[in-house]
């Protein structure tokens, strides 16, 4: 059986955008497996979710919503059991998750239940001689590891922002079924939402990061203003130095002991470019560096650099972006 199961995420009853990437990656893998392999997209929820009807557009043959009153909010043990049961019953060539906060928590539980290895946080997937192969960054992206998975299903999670959603319309047949199960022993009692519109650095298409060059915590305001100018598409990131100094929360740290990010645009402001930071952002599509030291290592990986005082350059950039967006 070489069908591919794409495990989706929902929050507050709506499909999360990262799920479009999961369906896209699953479609690519199903086509590589050949033999008319289909993509079944699976979402666990308390009731039918918004946005499930769009997933056919990204290549899902079937969108299966399994409902249970206990599944409205992420239930690690309940979800893992329901997904593993589904895999054991239906049989798949591969099971694909997002390497999101939830996916990285859920995928290992499912893999262990299935007695299968997990290839976490992959950036590429293909099929060679009938076996699934995948590439994933290791050493924070300083090297790429290519592995082959023996047997099936191959259990994979996809790094966010890498598998750009592609419109590949399929039937997208909708099915909904009630499923038995309980939350389990581990209970998510609450999600404390970040202020509205706050994007996570790992998922944002644009990241504006600051380092020691900002001089003091309050000066991050200039970066927040630049991020805001991008109209809800940008997140503010930070170097390890300023996180360790307590200027910014760890959630925003980019680098080897923080997050590895692959946005479309990464703007490094007042960041010299320590090797552990470069590792975390080098797969960004376009890198812009703004630094007063023309010899800073960040300029060696930046596509475009401006040498100068960030307190003059960044507000000017903010103004230009605002103009552009009208």
């Amino acid at each position, binding site marked *: 059986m070489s069908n591919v199961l794409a495990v989706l995420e929902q929050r507050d009853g709506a499909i999360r955008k990262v799920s479009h990437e999961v369906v896209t990656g699953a479609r690519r893998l199903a086509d590589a497996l050949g033999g008319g392999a289909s993509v079944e997209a699976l979402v666990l929820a308390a009731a039918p979710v918004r946005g499930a009807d769009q997933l056919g557009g990204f290549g899902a043959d079937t969108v299966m919503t399994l409902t249970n009153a206990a599944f409205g909010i*992420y239930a*690690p*043990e309940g979800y893992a059991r329901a997904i593993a049961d589904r895999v054991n019953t239906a049989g798949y060539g591969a099971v694909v998750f997002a390497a*999101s*906060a*939830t996916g*990285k*928590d859920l*995928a*290992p*539980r499912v*893999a*262990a*239940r299935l007695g299968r*290895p*997990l290839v*976490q946080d992959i950036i590429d997937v293909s099929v060679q001689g009938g076996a699934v192969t995948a590439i*994933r*960054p*290791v*050493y*924070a992206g*300083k*090297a*790429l*590891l*290519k*592995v082959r998975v*023996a*047997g099936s299903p191959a259990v994979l999670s996809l790094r966010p922002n890498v598998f750009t959603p592609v419109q590949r319309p399929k039937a997208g047949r909708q099915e909904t079924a009630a499923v038995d199960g309980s939350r389990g*022993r*581990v*209970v*998510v*009692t*609450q*999600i*404390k*939402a970040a202020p509205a519109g*706050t994007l996570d650095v*790992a998922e944002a298409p644009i990241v504006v990061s600051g380092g020691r060059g900002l001089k003091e915590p309050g000066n991050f305001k200039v970066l927040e203003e630049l991020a805001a100018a991008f109209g809800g598409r940008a997140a503010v990131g930070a170097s390890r130095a300023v996180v360790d100094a307590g200027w910014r929360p*760890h959630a925003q740290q980019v680098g*080897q*002991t*923080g997050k590895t990010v692959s946005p479309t*645009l990464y703007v490094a402001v007042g960041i010299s470019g320590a090797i*552990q930071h470069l590792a975390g952002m*080098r*797969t960004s*599509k*376009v890198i812009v560096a703004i630094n007063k030291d023309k010899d800073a290592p960040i300029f*060696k990986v*930046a*596509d*475009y*650099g*401006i*040498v*100068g005082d960030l307190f003059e350059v960044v507000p000017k*950039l903010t103004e230009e972006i605002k103009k552009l967006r009208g």
Partner: protein
Amino acid sequence: MKIAVCIKRVPDSETRVKIGSDGKSLDEAGVKFILNPYDEFAVEEALRRKEQAGTGEVVVIALGPPAAQETIRTALAMGADRGVLLQTQGLLPDGLETAKALAAELKGAGFDLILLGKMAIDDYNHQVGPMVAELLDLPCVTAVAHLEIAGGKGTAEREIEGGVEVVEFPLPAVLTTDKGLNEPRYPALKGIMAAKKKPLEVKPTAAGPGALEILALALPPERQAGRIVGEGSAAVAELVRLLREEAKIL
């Protein structure tokens, strides 16, 4: 409180990666190894829990080569009571095999808490903790950045995209630790001296080959050297033009 902490020996985060002659592994020549930074939070949390309880034991368990004994000594110098090295040849690409070896050691030993870093900064596998929990049928919370434990129950907070999840769980449990949970202590000289005398048991471990085969380890493609657009705010207009017309991303 009887607490196990699973730790790993990893290359320092400042390591410049060179690929070994087999094209599948890190060239370890000249590489400095450290206790995985995320595991430091686990060791620290275990020590604090034991100190608060006023009684208990902190056992550190590492799976790795003979040199991982040094890594265990680091944790002992921080204050852990004893160490166990599950000695293997080389590292396992398959996290499930690592989890199986750890679970076999942990099973039935009566730990109230089993702590691990949320991931290792070398292989980025990000999976061994929850796999150990599944194999032992214990509750598990991953990437814990805040923790309260009282009366056989815990409340943890973990960061998710756009927010923080508050999670309740019963003990015994497996937790993986994230940066922000605590500020790990540095081993004091007294601790370093004491660590030399603490028990460290070495157990040869034959882990299974697993179902993952490494095909290649390679350096990522070099980024094309970029260019300096100009100096100061006068260069901003040109930068924006390039982002629009050349990079086509605005």
